[in-house]
């Protein structure tokens, strides 16, 4: 059983128009940038994309929006993207906005075989419309359901041939939960190493969650808000 695929094309084989994809990352940090560019090339359409953000106009998921490849976005925050706002306000794009913590937990639940859970987040807001409300500890909570995807596409710092992954700093974000929640999980890594290279005590995503792994060709790792102090 070989999880290693030689290139991004092989890694995304089987992704078809109309599918639901999860894509890791927070803003432009920790996004599977090689896979996103390949999705543009593949021309798949009518995608439902589950991702905390929607990239910027000319990078990340913004590229798929430009090409009208996305039918529906499931996200928590979509500022920083004019084309997104235009498509959403004009009704071209379906958007399901979810509190960030609920989004993370719903992905984890999907991967962990927990079909639903209660959370206080969103009670009394639009987010709670149509959802069951129940009191726990004298506080109202709403029932949220698990999310899964046909493909989860995550980006890691290093990965081994068994599919074990480690992430760097805040580039971890949504990647570990999404890795759990894909029917097929594809990992794009900066460095692919032989099994046995990574310390088994410090694996962020155990290989059992990963079906395919490849080393990305180019990592631009664009910074969204370069903020510095003077020396």
């Amino acid at each position, binding site marked *: 059983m070989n999880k290693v695929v030689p290139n991004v094309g092989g890694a995304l084989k089987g992704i078809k128009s109309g599918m639901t994809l999860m894509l890791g990352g*927070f*803003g*432009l*940090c*920790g996004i599977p940038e090689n896979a996103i560019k390949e999705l543009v090339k593949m021309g798949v359409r009518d995608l439902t994309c589950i991702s*905390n953000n929607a990239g910027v106009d000319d990078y990340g998921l913004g590229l798929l929006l430009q090409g009208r490849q996305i039918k529906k976005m499931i*996200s*928590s*925050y*979509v*500022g*920083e993207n004019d084309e997104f*706002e235009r498509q*959403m*306000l004009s009704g071209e794009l379906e*958007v399901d*906005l979810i*509190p*960030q*913590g*609920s*989004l*993370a*937990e719903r*992905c*984890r639940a999907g991967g962990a075989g927990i079909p639903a859970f209660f*959370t*206080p*987040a*969103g*009670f*009394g*807001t*639009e*987010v709670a419309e149509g959802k069951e409300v129940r009191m726990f500890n004298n506080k109202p909570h709403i029932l949220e359901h698990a999310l899964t995807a046909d493909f989860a596409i995550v980006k890691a*710092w290093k990965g081994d041939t068994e599919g074990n992954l480690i*992430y*760097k*700093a*805040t*580039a*971890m*974000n*949504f*990647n*570990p*939960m999404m890795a759990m929640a894909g029917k097929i999980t594809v990992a794009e890594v900066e460095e692919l190493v032989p099994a046995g290279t990574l310390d088994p005590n410090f694996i*962020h995503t155990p290989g059992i969650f990963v079906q395919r792994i490849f080393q990305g060709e180019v990592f631009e*790792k*664009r*910074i*969204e*808000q*370069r*903020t*510095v*102090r*003077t*020396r």
Partner: protein
Amino acid sequence: MALDKIGIAKRIAQELRDGWYVNLGIGIPTLVANYVPEGLSVEFQSENGVLGMGPFPFDGEEDADLINAGKQTITVKSGAAFFDSATSFAMIRGKHVQLTVLGAMEVSENGDIANWKIPGKMVKGMGGAMDLVASAENIIVAMMHSNKAGESKLLKTCSLPLTGVACVKKIVTELAVLEIKNGSFHLLERAPGVSVEEIVAKTEGALVIPKSVPEMVL
């Protein structure tokens, strides 16, 4: 004289207590980190997955993999920790974070808050705000007293879609510090040189004014 953004941040920093873990929202709240009173040990949590945030990096030392929830490049202090988004919101939902400071477009006299959507006009999304306001025991809103059109942001009822209900405990604006309890804003302090009359004029919701309203000491 009304406070500037830094003044608001400084006043909020006075609310910090030793040993607290604090989540700061985008904008004015982020500035609070610069004014932690001396001798206090306070750790800043950012919901994208970091505890122990330090100052912004020096020019040339930015790391694309190390950002805060505002997507700004940051550094970490020694003793920091990184974690995934589910763990991050476990900290928030599980009340391990002692204070949340965030901005708002509107706050109502019963503590409702709206800060994520203007129907038909602007929808950026709630990000982590709904989780934060639904979970935190201690929420301070940092905002201007009025919007750009000059209308009060301290209302009887929020007109915009809500982020959370009956959750805001305290508000610090350029004019005043207010507490929310029993369905009213309670004026605690006024900015140096700002009159109670000005605060009354700019507050639409029910406002309780004590006999004497001290000036903030910054």
